[in-house]
């Protein structure tokens, strides 16, 4: 816990740096609250205007912002963070500095991720030594480590910027004063959606990301609930609906009951690590297997595939999957390898994951005490439900055609915008009663879990239970808060530990400790304990294990301001020099090794570019070094491609990718970051 930490923030000092003193009521009319669907693969932002929610488009006209963040190595002299389509496009070239699907890591500790570590192209840092450092981190090529919360905050900032730009025209009279763009409305509050199945740590991490992006998080709203809201089921209708949400990385099933203007979530279930990404990986594995390039040590984060090759395979797998939405068959290509892929193949590849969803559906229906035919409708959410394979599966599972008037990719953001509007004073007559997705309890003797708040309890929720001491003269009481459905501690997520001290020294069973759980409307938990005889108390906000303390948020915010200045130029120069030297050395080695793959004019062009890099690297203009390095990249692009193709051909002849990595990585051109990584 962080005593006093809350005061720093609730008082509002830090988050109002851009607009001092404007946090309170008199300026509310100038504020705009948006709804944000912070997705695994894509994110969206929407707002209510003239009574109706609409999704806001980016400058390129698209509604989807790819949830991809690319970090430029420190000191390169360019914008340091790129979010969205551009980051996605360059992911294959800069795999270790480009982070996709970060939502899967939200609120996770490094130990949770053994299963995916080998199949992501970037490097996961192990837990550090410091306290509170257990959150998983991604290590960039320049050695910086970023948390999923920071990466998500970048996506949120990009969405807010997109919304400001989209609303910039014609809203000048509503805009706030201060040093902001006078045409852009102030967007400082949002409803952010989370999978209904997110546990406390994952919700906490999402809220932290919002705070880090400078947003007041009005509510964390469950995605299926948001979708149901968007469907306008609140318009006087009543009924029971299932929301089947298969996104890029998560699966949710929720059963909702609409009645008397109250939207009640009856049951929810799902899997936070299941979605379209799994399909991509399954297809990419087929592709790599066809290329003879099986992963040699599955799950070992220290030996992933060659990152660039893996990224290419994943991109091609996703593209092929999308092509099958319209076509009956297609071809997946990697270098010179190609394999045919039909809808039946896709269905077969998806089957294990779809079967997992049907088990979750069965359980949710059981919790709701409903049979599938008692539902009034089934709503589809998530990009993966656009696939005919998934639609057919859902129709069969529920015995009815699902509703699909709204775009399953937009529906969540639209609902979030409606709720943001209602919560920021826009009115709205619907009350949402959401539930807690996983049971909350404490560890008792022998590692057995005593559940205090069962899953699917309506929030806000409170539960109180009294426990007694088990030893004579026991003066302390350890409280271990866990979340999950298993009977023993091992199978559940540990949320927090705290201790109640100063119990009266009495025989076992006489001291009585009352433990109280309070879950707020965001699904976040607070646990307190007090001894009934003496009144001694202890309490904990459940978050330090995986979330960020207020001090950490403060430090990150300050860092982001301070870094902008002083030593940046110097660091840039040093970094660029080192990078340039590595690049030249790697290119030279590649030329010596594979001279045959390179014709004479190309060779001359590469040599000239190398000389130029070495010349400017002796100077102090880091931007010039960067430009020369990029020129060298361009000059050697074809050569690098030739080496890539040769490597894939070699793979077909039965060599393993790990052997090939030595061929691929130190090459010139597109594997520049990889070279830097490997030589460390």
């Amino acid at each position: 816990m962080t005593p006093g930490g809350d005061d720093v923030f609730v008082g509002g000092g830090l988050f109002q740096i851009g607009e001092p003193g404007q946090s309170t009521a008199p300026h509310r009319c100038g504020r705009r609250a948006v709804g944000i669907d912070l997705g695994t693969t894509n994110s969206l932002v929407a707002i209510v205007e003239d009574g109706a929610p609409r999704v806001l488009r980016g400058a390129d006209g698209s509604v989807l912002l790819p949830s991809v963040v690319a970090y430029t190595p420190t000191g390169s002299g360019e914008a340091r963070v790129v979010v969205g389509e551009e980051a996605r496009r360059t992911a294959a070239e800069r795999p270790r500095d480009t982070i996709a699907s970060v939502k899967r890591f939200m609120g996770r500790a490094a130990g949770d991720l053994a299963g995916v570590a080998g199949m992501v192209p970037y490097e996961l840092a192990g837990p550090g030594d410091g306290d509170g450092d257990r959150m998983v981190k991604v290590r960039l090529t320049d050695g910086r480590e970023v948390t999923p919360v920071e990466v998500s905050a970048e996506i949120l900032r990009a969405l807010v910027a997109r919304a400001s730009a989209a609303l910039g025209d014609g809203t000048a009279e509503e805009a706030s004063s201060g040093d902001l763009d006078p045409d852009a409305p102030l967007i400082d509050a949002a409803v952010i959606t989370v999978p209904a199945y997110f546990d406390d740590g994952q919700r906490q991490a999402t809220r932290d990301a919002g705070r880090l992006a400078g947003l007041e998080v009005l509510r964390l709203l469950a995605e299926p609930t948001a979708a149901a809201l968007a469907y306008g089921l609140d318009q006087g209708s009543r009924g029971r609906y299932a929301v089947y949400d298969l996104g890029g990385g998560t699966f949710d099933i929720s059963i909702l009951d609409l009645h008397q203007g109250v939207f009640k979530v009856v049951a929810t279930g799902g899997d936070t690590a299941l979605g379209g990404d799994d399909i991509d990986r399954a297809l990419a594995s087929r592709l790599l297997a066809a290329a003879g390039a099986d992963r040699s040590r599955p799950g070992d984060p220290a030996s992933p595939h060659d990152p660039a090759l893996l990224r290419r395979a994943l991109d091609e797998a996703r593209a092929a999957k999308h092509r099958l939405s319209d076509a009956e068959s297609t071809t997946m290509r990697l270098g010179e390898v190609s394999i045919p892929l039909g809808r039946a193949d896709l269905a077969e590849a998806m089957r294990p994951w779809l079967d997992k969803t049907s088990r979750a559906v069965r359980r949710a229906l059981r919790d709701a005490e409903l049979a599938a035919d008692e539902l009034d409708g089934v709503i589809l959410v998530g990009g993966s439900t656009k696939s005919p394979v998934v639609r057919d599966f859902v129709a069969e599972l529920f015995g009815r055609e699902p509703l699909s008037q709204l775009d399953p990719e937009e529906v969540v953001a639209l609902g979030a915008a409606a709720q943001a509007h209602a919560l920021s004073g826009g009115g709205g007559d619907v009350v949402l009663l959401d539930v807690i997705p996983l049971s909350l309890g404490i560890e008792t003797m022998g590692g057995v879990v005593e559940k205090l708040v069962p899953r699917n309890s309506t929030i806000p929720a409170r539960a109180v239970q009294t426990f007694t001491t088990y030893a004579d003269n026991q003066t302390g009481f350890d409280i271990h808060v866990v979340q999950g459905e298993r009977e023993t501690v091992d199978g559940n997520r540990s949320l927090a530990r705290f201790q109640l001290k100063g119990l009266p020294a009495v025989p076992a069973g006489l001291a009585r400790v009352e433990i109280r759980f309070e879950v707020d409307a965001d699904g976040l938990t607070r646990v307190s304990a007090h001894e009934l005889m003496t009144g001694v108390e202890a309490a904990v906000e459940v978050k330090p294990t995986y979330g960020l303390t207020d001090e950490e948020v403060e430090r990150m915010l300050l860092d982001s301001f301070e870094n902008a200045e002083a030593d940046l130029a110097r660091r840039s120069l040093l970094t660029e020099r080192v990078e340039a030297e590595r690049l030249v050395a790697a290119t030279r080695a590649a030329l010596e090794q594979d001279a045959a793959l390179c014709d004479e004019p190309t060779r001359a062009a590469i040599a000239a570019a190398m000389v130029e890099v070495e010349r400017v690297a002796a100077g102090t203009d880091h931007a010039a070094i960067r430009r020369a390095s990029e020129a060298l990249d361009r000059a050697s692009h074809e050569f690098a491609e030739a080496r890539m193709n040769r490597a894939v051909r070699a793979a077909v002849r039965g060599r393993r990718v790990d052997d090939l990595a030595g061929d691929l990585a130190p090459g010139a051109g597109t594997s520049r970051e990889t070279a830097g990584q490997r030589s460390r």
Partner: protein
Amino acid sequence: MSDYFELLGLPRRFAVDLGELERNYLGRSRAVHPDRLAGAERSAEERSDAAGQAMEVNQAYRALRRELPRAEHLLSLEGVTIGDNQPVAPALLAEMLELREALEEARAAGDRGRLDQLERDARAGERAELAELGARFSALEAMAAGAPERAAALAAVVDQVIRLRYLARYRDAFAEDDDVEGAA
């Protein structure tokens, strides 16, 4: 101990009109839900009060919606709490052991059809015992406050509640099959 019947505007008795419970619960929820205060000029204290009330309403609904927690709440209003270490009739324990053995056998054999049959039986058995609980409550509630035979009627209710606790736990065991499967 709050009286949840009073909180949700229902007569304090075992037989509850579920439609009325639902209507009153939703009405109260609308009235106290913290979101209703959002955007308005309210102090943090008012919001936290509203959150506390919403928690209480949700707690009340959870206690009254199902028969077993409703019965336990009625008993606690009578000043009776049933601990986990309550002595149990040996006949009940023997009966439960037998049921559990049948369940384990079906699980070990991986016999899905048998498991489904046992689950249907468990639900049917529970419904019958809940009807019996209702009858015992009716008898108790018909008696005047100070009636001498009341203690025996109350004890009969307590016995039935204990029996139902065991049956509910047995029925829950079937849900574990889904959980285990789902976690695979």
